[in-house]
């Protein structure tokens, strides 16, 4: 059977649609990963609780605007509290440079903006998962 890379994709925050998150979930599935998709309007607490029960290697948070930096940060904090910074934490969406720096300082491992190709994301996950900080 062997180990598959497990990823949880969530879109925190109240607004918008989840088309972008769905596209990423499907692309990661097509790259051979097992993707737990949790849909829209998730609280950071729900995201982390689900990620721990699902024993994922990667959490991907999607956002349409920079408005979710607080929610993103909270996920990083909760992972720190649970001592699970071994989980690769990624953010994607329209995220301004200054927010990127804040998030990386909070414990994010990668931030992907709309210019990033799916292939780059897949390679990043394959190369960086399981590397404990």
């Amino acid at each position: 059977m062997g180990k598959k890379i497990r990823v949880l994709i969530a879109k925190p925050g109240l607004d918008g649609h989840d088309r972008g998150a769905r596209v990423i979930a499907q692309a990661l599935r097509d790259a051979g990963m097992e993707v737990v998709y949790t849909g829209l309007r998730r609280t950071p607490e729900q995201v982390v609780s689900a990620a721990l029960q699902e024993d994922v290697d990667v959490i991907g948070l999607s956002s349409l605007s920079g408005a979710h930096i607080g929610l993103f940060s909270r996920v990083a904090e909760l992972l720190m509290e649970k001592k699970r910074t071994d989980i690769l934490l990624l953010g994607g969406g329209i995220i301004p440079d200054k927010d990127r720096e804040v998030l990386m300082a909070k414990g994010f491992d990668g931030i992907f903006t709309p210019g990033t190709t799916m292939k780059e994301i897949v390679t990043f996950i394959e190369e960086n998962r399981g590397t404990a900080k």
Partner: protein
Amino acid sequence: MNKPDLLAQGIQAGDEQALARGLSVVENREEGWEALLERLYPESRRGFVLGVTGPPGGGKSTLVKRLVEEFRKEGVTVGVLAVDPTSPFSGGALLGDRTRMMDLAGKEGVFIRSMASRGALGGLNPGINDAVLLMEAFGSEVVIIETVGVGQAEIAITEVADMVVVVLVPGQGDEVQALKGGLLEIADLFVINKSDRGGAEELEIHLQWAVAGHEARLGRRPPIVKTAAIKGEGLGELCAGLREHRQRAAETALDEERSRRRADLALRAHLEERIGAAFLTPLLAAEEWHEAIERIARREISPGKSARRLLRKNFPDVWRCTRED
């Protein structure tokens, strides 16, 4: 203490992260998986295993979420195993059942795990039995397994579950198809979900006829319950149906029969896995395997004859006992 012992102890103490890790260990057959199962087997109490199956999009996950809420009202702890198909093309999987259950995330007494079918013949993950055992050891009094009822998955579910609920939807025209596919045989109870839409009564009448027609053969007449999972309607009746079934199963020999079926499946799965690993896996990687495939594809040799030759060459003892003459 070694890793399996630590995990086993954590699981039995109700540590969620230990269960999460343990489920991965048995699913991936990671080092120590057998020791972990050995540790947990004798000490785990048997829970009630409820299978929920039916055609895609019928509202199974929405219904499971409602059922979990009902069980929690009574203080019953629940584990959910939500199985979605592995893509035969990439080996990956999109596990989307949680989307309908996120309100349950972080709630006490509920543990939800998504599982890919991982190419198992029966459409159920080969480790499903072991996953159920881990949840029982963790203390889940009820374990709900959600699978998509297409192909063989519905047959496999009866070998794991104590009770099978088949979820159908009115007005899709596929209900007759679904019954032909074998869902009639495996159902202990039918749910007609989305009854807030039209057509539920027609489907109910149709089902009643089908069920009555098969009563003599099946030896039972599964009840039919109408629900609207999205609004939480019909849940009381459904729960009553579950209770009735459990009571009847305990009074008759059905419980023991299901226990034996589960044991049978578990034993067979473990044997097949070991036989496959010992005999087939090395052969599948061998040069002569690829040669055989080429020749069969060119129709130079039949698959049956090719199989006999491979057996004779690699496992002469097996070959000798399978010879027809």
